[in-house]
């Protein structure tokens, strides 16, 4: 017998062909079963390794966080709440931060998170200048820019959010490529960050077809926050009337009518009134009516009440609310007739609520109507009068 001794790769190859031939000889059912068993075991093993890696990563993260807390927390907090302004250089010295040996990417990510946490904790006592200087002392702005440009989508997205959360800003040059990112979520976040701070035609996206077609309810909240922030930092917000009629998206039109209301742009009321009669969008009409009422544009009162009967129920309720907010004293009879003519119980209640809140005159009429009310309507009067039910309503308003 001349036995061949196998070494190294030949050995593996031999067993590979051996098991391959055994496997080939099995019936189909057994072949499939063995295949599934092997794949399941292999993937389970990979997942186990995955959990282990995630676990180790978490431990490492916890260690870094602990290090950052121990080293910087107290000092950062003291500086952040100090009413006296600390310069960047002073802060570097106080924190004992060596800029020649800066923190790593992971450490800076966690530091950003930690600073955001401090911002929430210290909210009222925070000295904005010192807080900004702390961020400069840690050299975080270049880090933010680097993350936005080169990090993975997850971190890129997070950073775009953190910047607004920390009320910081980055160079427009860094943001520009992201404004046209393929990923719509990143694109939107970048556009929001750009609008939030930039002065170079920041609201140009409102004219894009993409803005219209990809608009989400969340964008409403985002845009309101952007306007709010710009006003807080003494930056202008645009005249939004230009975008009221143009978009096709049903959420956008009422949004701009609402924004006019929140920012008290009373000059735009005549335009809104014209739009009220020209648009077919019911939601837009509702919001315009409320806006006109909120801004006490009494010139619109008669026109709105005259158009009342031709409107759908939802718009009718908005007109009642609008007239109530105007408090001109001229609409008691309108509210009474709205109550008598209402076919929808919500409209009826809106008319009664309007009367109840319409000064002494309205309250007097409300009481007299209550005395004459039929049995099914008595509960409506009681509902509106009840202070406990109203308490929640007032809180909601």
């Amino acid at each position, binding site marked *: 017998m001349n036995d061949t001794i196998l070494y190294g790769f030949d050995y593996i190859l031999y067993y590979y062909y051996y098991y391959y031939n055994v496997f080939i000889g099995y019936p189909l059912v057994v072949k499939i079963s063995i295949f599934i068993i092997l794949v399941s075991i292999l993937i389970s093993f990979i997942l186990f390794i995955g959990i282990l890696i995630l676990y180790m990563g978490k431990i490492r993260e916890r260690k870094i966080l602990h290090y950052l807390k121990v080293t910087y927390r107290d000092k950062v907090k003291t500086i952040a709440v100090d009413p006296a302004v600390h310069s960047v250089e002073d802060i570097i010295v106080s924190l004992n931060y060596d800029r020649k040996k800066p923190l790593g990417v992971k450490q800076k990510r966690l530091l950003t998170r930690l600073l955001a946490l401090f911002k929430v904790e210290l909210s009222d006592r925070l000295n904005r200048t010192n807080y900004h200087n702390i961020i400069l002392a840690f050299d975080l702005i270049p880090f933010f820019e680097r993350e936005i440009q080169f990090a993975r989508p*997850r971190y890129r997205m997070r950073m775009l959010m953190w910047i607004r959360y920390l009320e910081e800003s980055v160079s427009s040059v860094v943001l520009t490529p992201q404004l046209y990112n393929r990923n719509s979520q990143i694109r939107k976040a970048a556009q929001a960050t750009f609008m939030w701070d930039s002065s170079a035609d920041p609201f140009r996206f409102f004219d894009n077809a993409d803005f219209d077609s990809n608009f989400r*309810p969340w964008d409403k909240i985002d845009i309101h926050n952007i306007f709010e922030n710009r006003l807080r930092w003494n930056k202008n917000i645009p005249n939004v009337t230009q975008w009221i009629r143009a978009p096709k998206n049903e959420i956008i039109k009422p949004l701009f009518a609402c924004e006019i209301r929140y920012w008290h742009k009373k000059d735009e009321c005549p335009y809104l009134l014209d739009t009220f009669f020209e648009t077919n969008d019911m939601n837009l009409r509702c919001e315009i009516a409320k806006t006109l009422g909120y801004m006490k544009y009494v010139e619109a009162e008669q026109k709105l009440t005259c158009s009342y009967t031709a409107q759908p129920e939802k718009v009718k309720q908005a007109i009642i609310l609008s007239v109530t907010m105007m408090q001109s004293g001229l609409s008691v009879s309108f509210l009474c007739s709205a109550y008598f003519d209402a076919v929808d119980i919500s409209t009826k209640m809106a008319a009664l609520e309007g009367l109840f809140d319409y000064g002494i005159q309205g309250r007097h009429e409300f009481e007299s109507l209550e005395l004459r009310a039929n049995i099914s309507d008595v509960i409506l009067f009681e509902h509106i009068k009840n202070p406990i*039910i109203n308490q929640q309503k007032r809180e909601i308003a």
Partner: protein
Amino acid sequence: MKNFIFDFYGYFVFFYSLLLIVIHTLCMVASFIAQRREKIFFSIPYIKKLLTDSPYTPGISIVVPAFNEENSVIANVKSMLCVDYPKYEVIIVNDGSTDSTLDKLISSFDLVEVPFAYRELLKSAPVKRILKSRRKEYSILTVVDKENGGTKADASNAGINVAQYPYFVDTDVDCFIEPNALYRLIWPVLSNHKKVIAVSAAMMISQGSRIVDGRMQYERVPHSLYPLFQELEYMRSYLVGKMGWASINAISNVSGGFGFFDREIVIAVGGYDSNSFAEDMDLTIRMVKYMRELDIPYKIPQIPETCCWTEAPSNLALLGRQRTRWARGLIQWLFVHHKVILNPRYRQVGILLMPYMLLFEFLAPFVEVGGVGVFIWLILTNSVNWTTVWVIFLMIYIFCLFQSTVICFFSYFVGSTYRRYVFAREGYILLVIAAMLEPFLYHPFITFFSLKGFFSYFTKRNFKWVNMSHKGFEGGEENKSVFVPAENATVSVTMQKRRVNDED
């Protein structure tokens, strides 16, 4: 002929299992992709900050039917009042309780009857009165006292009638809602271009967890047998099944235990059906049909993070009762909505989901029992090919274990607090052990209860709704969830004997 039948059955069962494995694998892949995407774009602090300050924040009503829940109602309502969201209300519907549920609510929250203009938009048993609290801190609480309607659906409908916000969460009194749950639920609604008509959220078993001051202090895997198996089942269902189906927008069920709905659509489809044994499944499919028939693009997403903890049936009798009802609900659901099956008008729901439910949810117990029967017959006739049998059994068993590894990974990946105990007794190790035992100690019972449910449906046995009385977040033992009330931070150990109501 006999051999042919057995061969045919053998191959049928094999390829049936194979198809199921393929579907589950696809669900796992789809779920993983969806979870990664969710992880990228969801940031709680940022969302919280914007929603807290915004006038556009949509309000949410939490509707909670309660029937004879005197043991748990106060602690649970308090935990619901601790939820973190700027605009929400809690509506407790006392469904004609015969115990002191209502009295306890009245005394604890200083409730008084108010002249509420109740509008019956959805059908329910008559409402006797509506109560609100005189205390400002409970102004978001409304209690609806109604006559017993016999079903949870009836009570939920009454709650929806009173709700004043555009969205509502339907849940149970035995549920603890995670404080950030409403932010998680509203995010898919706000971040989608399509109309989100409902959101399904992951639920976990509360036995084993500890809740202090309305907040979850720690969540641990239940240590008792049946809740542990149910935990595994819930995780598999939410993290793999529903996440997978949701990725093609074909979710079968937004759970009545904790489901988020668009109130307007729910009212348009007539609310919950009191005659249905699976009222949540029935409502979901009716909402889908409504949207498809009106050709309105819609979405029903699934959230992988745990938003709610619920008390699971802790013994076989209660579990059996629950599963029998679910089985009856499933078959009733398939009968009522049989026109959706393979109907291209309902797209993925008609073409994929409904046939799946029919083949793999309804038929599975029959196939399993048939398989056992054939196997026994083959043993008796000494015609078993043992090598093949072992390989096939091993394949099924290994795949079950593989699925459990996947859910542990997913759970860790989405950031479940079990990951604190990753290698401890309280964490995933227990779940893996449960997964090893499940096919022998749990699954046969579930199959039996399903068949029992089908049988009782076909034989039209009288079926009454019963109260699954709960212990609530009380007790101090390891296998019970613990609730420590806000004003009294000591653990109250009141082991109430569970009352088991007869089914028939």
